[in-house]
């Protein structure tokens, strides 16, 4: 057999299981160091903003520099509460999955600021296109965790009527689009939504999120091009949490060039932001939203963060990355950083924090109990299986009507036989 001497470049993962975590590849600017241009700035002026890292909170928890959004303490406390609620909810749902109550779950541990801060920076009329790891957008917009839980359980109060895998939520009244399991598909849809807003003369904008791994899909590029060509009022977010499933961001093209740099590369403004800094995410989102609303076009925001947990409950990250990388992550924990900032302002303390945590845990436990009362995977009330035929079309066509009747006959036969095999 001939030996092939390959000259292919294969991205080298910084650290594998058993090795020391290595985040030396993450380029970090000091807090406050990156300038904040006016919202109407030319795209090419944003090139440095797409390579540097916009940060507001310094290591001591002080807010510094031109990007400080100077939010009132009430907003900061609300943000802290929602990030913490997201985390408590995630932990609880992770455990229920382990107990077999739900079939699947995805936590957003370590990335809570990316979603919650954006929910605060955008207006309620703006349309959001979340990925499966943006539960903080729902919580930030006020979707009750009870509603999310009922979806996870596919129970009688499930907004998706049992048709979707857990976490594929939507909330039409709060303007959160239906989540797809197919990566990046919602990106061009968000641009189209924004184009429609522009066509209709409205000042709503759209915002969409994908993981850095998903930027590889063609839909990501279609979205940027349409946004650029029509100057669509949209904010396009890339959540760079360093990992897809087992492949690190180098496999999505993150080596040597930031994801944000693809914005200016395609003619959109680009911002690279400390995704674990609530204030920086808020400020960057607000800047991009204002720019879009004023007709200056779309912005690509890269949120630099870290996926602290497994990809999903089906994943075991100890197979492909060092255990306990999160403590070594140089941008810290978003909840801890906002907490420290509030304490530094004299607007928060450890006692209040502990009380808040206890309150949220009680709230989530109570919601879970209530959600279970509407049925679970394994017992209690169930949705009528015949519902699976609804909404394939607006009006049930004859062949589906016939199949529904067949299913009902089959279920009756199963009941008669006393077995549902």
């Amino acid at each position, binding site marked *: 057999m001939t030996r092939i001497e390959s000259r292919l470049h294969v991205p080298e993962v910084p650290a594998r299981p058993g090795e020391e975590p290595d985040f030396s590849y993450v380029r970090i600017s000091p807090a406050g160091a990156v300038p904040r241009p006016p919202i109407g700035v030319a795209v090419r002026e944003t090139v440095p903003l797409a390579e540097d890292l916009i940060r507001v909170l310094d290591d001591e928890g002080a807010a510094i520099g031109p990007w400080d959004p100077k939010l009132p303490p009430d907003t900061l406390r609300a943000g802290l509460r929602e990030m913490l609620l997201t985390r408590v909810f995630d932990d609880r749902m992770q455990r229920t999955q382990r107990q077999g109550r739900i079939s699947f779950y995805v936590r957003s541990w370590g990335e809570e600021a990316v979603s919650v801060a954006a929910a605060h920076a955008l207006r309620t009329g703006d349309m959001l296109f979340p990925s499966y790891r943006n539960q903080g957008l729902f919580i930030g917009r006020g979707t009750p965790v009870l509603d999310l839980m009922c979806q996870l359980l*596919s129970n009688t109060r499930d907004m998706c009527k*049992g048709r979707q895998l857990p976490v594929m939520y939507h909330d039409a009244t709060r303007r959160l689009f239906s989540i797809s399991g197919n990566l990046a598909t919602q990106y061009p849809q968000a641009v189209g939504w924004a184009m429609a807003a522009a066509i209709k003369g409205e000042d709503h904008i759209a915002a969409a999120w994908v993981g850095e791994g998903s930027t590889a899909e063609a839909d990501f590029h279609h979205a940027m091009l349409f946004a650029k060509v029509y100057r669509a009022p949209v904010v396009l977010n890339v959540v760079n949490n360093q990992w897809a499933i087992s492949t690190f961001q180098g496999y999505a*093209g993150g080596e040597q060039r930031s994801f944000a740099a693809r914005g200016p590369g395609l003619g959109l403004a680009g911002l690279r932001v400390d995704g674990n800094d609530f204030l920086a995410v808020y400020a960057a989102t607000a800047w991009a939203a204002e720019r879009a609303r004023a007709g200056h076009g779309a912005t690509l925001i890269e949120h630099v963060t870290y996926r602290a947990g497994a990809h999903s409950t089906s994943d075991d990250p100890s197979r492909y990355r060092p255990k306990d990388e999160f403590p070594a992550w140089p941008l810290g924990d978003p909840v801890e950083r906002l907490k420290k900032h509030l304490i530094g302002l004299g607007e928060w303390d450890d006692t209040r924090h502990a009380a808040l945590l206890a309150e949220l845990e009680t709230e989530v436990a109570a919601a879970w109990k209530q959600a279970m009362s509407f049925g679970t995977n394994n017992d209690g009330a169930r949705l009528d299986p015949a519902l699976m035929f609804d909404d394939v079309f607006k009006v049930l066509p004859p062949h589906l009507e016939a199949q529904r009747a067949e299913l009902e006959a089959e279920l009756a*036969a199963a009941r008669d036989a006393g077995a549902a095999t």
Partner: protein
Amino acid sequence: MTAMSMVQALNSAMEVMLARDPRVVILGEDVGYFGGVFRATEGLQSRYGAHRVIDTPIAEGGIVGAAIGMAANGLRPVAEIQFADYIYPAYDQIVSELARMRYRSAAAFTAPVTIRTPCGGGIRGGQTHSQSPEGVFAHVSGLKVVMPSNPYDAKGMLIAAIEDDDPVIFFEPKRLYNGPFDGDPHKAAESWAGHPMGDVPEGHYTVPIGKAAVVRAGNAVTVVTYGTMVHVCLAAVADLGLDAEVVDVRSMVPLDIDTLAASVAKTGRCLIAHEATRFGGYGAELSASLQERCFWHLQAPIQRVAGWDTPYPHAFEWEYFPGRLRVRRALEALMQVSA
């Protein structure tokens, strides 16, 4: 012979081919260091290197497009699409390019690419981890389309696919990866150990593409099926104590119509069963082809059992899945018809 699960048999097929043929490369999402989300490529990168077992960006169109280019430049790529539900971004590359490269260039360029992809339901995966799109590809001229139902066939057919000079879409019923499945979700999961088709040679062998297999001989009725449904149909036939012949299609394109038609001509009755949706599905092709060949032998109209014509609903998996009861009811009805 070694006892292997279907995942291990597929792994073994790729290992055999990586060792034998330096042109063989594996590429796909998470297939390298991690060994694939279903572990089908486990250990291959550590043995054959990151230049032959290649982790790719999450871009199915890119994976297939690159595989076509590699094949055109002399390699034998085996591309994995993580779930058949995620194959659609590659649809244009597959339909407009892969399927027609030989034809449009009068064989000046060819693309011997194998695309492996897990399909089918039964794992609570909801609409984005459960689909069976074989019919969508069988309809495209220039693609071979296959689906094994057991470890022995899986290994032999995958080696045959990699050695084939034409593109092969290789569907793997994921519910069968670790054991046969007779359609009863309440039973403890079975393993392939002890199953006759779980006994797999360690070395090189092929199971030819284009050949169906009679997995149970009988005279009263022919059940034509493939994938997970082979096991479901065998169980349904056993439930009823029917003298049925069960034929595993294995290869949708090319189709071994002779084996199928011989069976139907013999029994005079035919039930076609697949997991995929019914309308315009592959079962319609089977039904039409068999009717053309066997019309004068038939004692009853050919019937089909399939998934309902809806997306695959998460909460109603077992009401959606064409399980044993649905197969039994169809068989009972079919046996009552007299010409």
